[in-house]
């Protein structure tokens, strides 16, 4: 079975500071990894995804994530956050043999001016 752990439920960070949102997964098969963001009153929007190839993946809005197979992690990073990054972030995995997503519990990022 697949599972996704986002250890930090809330992350406050000052504007222009760096941030890392942690995501660990467990799976007995190969997976694909995704980060989605949900801004207030909006649907989930894809930030980035790892399918294969380079382990460092760049996404929209200056975010990037690194796939670490040995540590089964896919942490999301941004070197300098903006107020507009305040949102909830979800890590998700899907098996390479299916379509269903397995999500973490989400991390609420609050950027403090």
């Amino acid at each position, binding site marked *: 079975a697949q599972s996704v752990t986002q250890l930090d439920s809330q992350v406050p960070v000052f504007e222009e500071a760096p941030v890392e949102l942690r995501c660990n997964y467990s799976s007995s098969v190969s997976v694909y990894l995704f980060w989605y963001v949900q801004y207030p009153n909006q649907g*989930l929007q894809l930030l980035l995804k790892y399918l294969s190839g380079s382990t460092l993946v760049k996404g929209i809005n200056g975010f990037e994530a690194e796939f670490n197979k040995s540590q089964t992690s896919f942490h999301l990073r941004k070197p300098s956050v903006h107020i507009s990054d305040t949102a909830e972030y979800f890590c998700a995995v899907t098996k390479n043999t*299916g379509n269903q997503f397995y999500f*973490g519990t989400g991390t609420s990022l609050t950027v403090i001016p």
Partner: protein
Amino acid sequence: EAGVTQFPSHSVIEKGQTVTLRCDPISGHDNLYWYRRVMGKEIKFLLHFVKESKQDESGMPNNRFLAERTGGTYSTLKVQPAELEDSGVYFCASSLYRASSTDTQYFGPGTRLTVL
């Protein structure tokens, strides 16, 4: 191009009543998914349609939930009768290609269901 839309955005009902949620996927998307997020927990998969057929309904909690996708376009999710534990946010998503787990799923804003 319009994104995935869901109706209503909020619904408050009493235990024992019936509620029907609607999802309109992006035009041309064969795949349609329903997910649910109970407060503070992870978003959980409910089921997956390919056109009008149920491809995977392994996440449906029980037989009080009925999902349909008439003509392979919009989908409805009916809860009858609703129970307190059904409260949460119901998300719909759609994707274009068949049988590919690498496809981006595009999510709607969700319907927040509160059962009193």
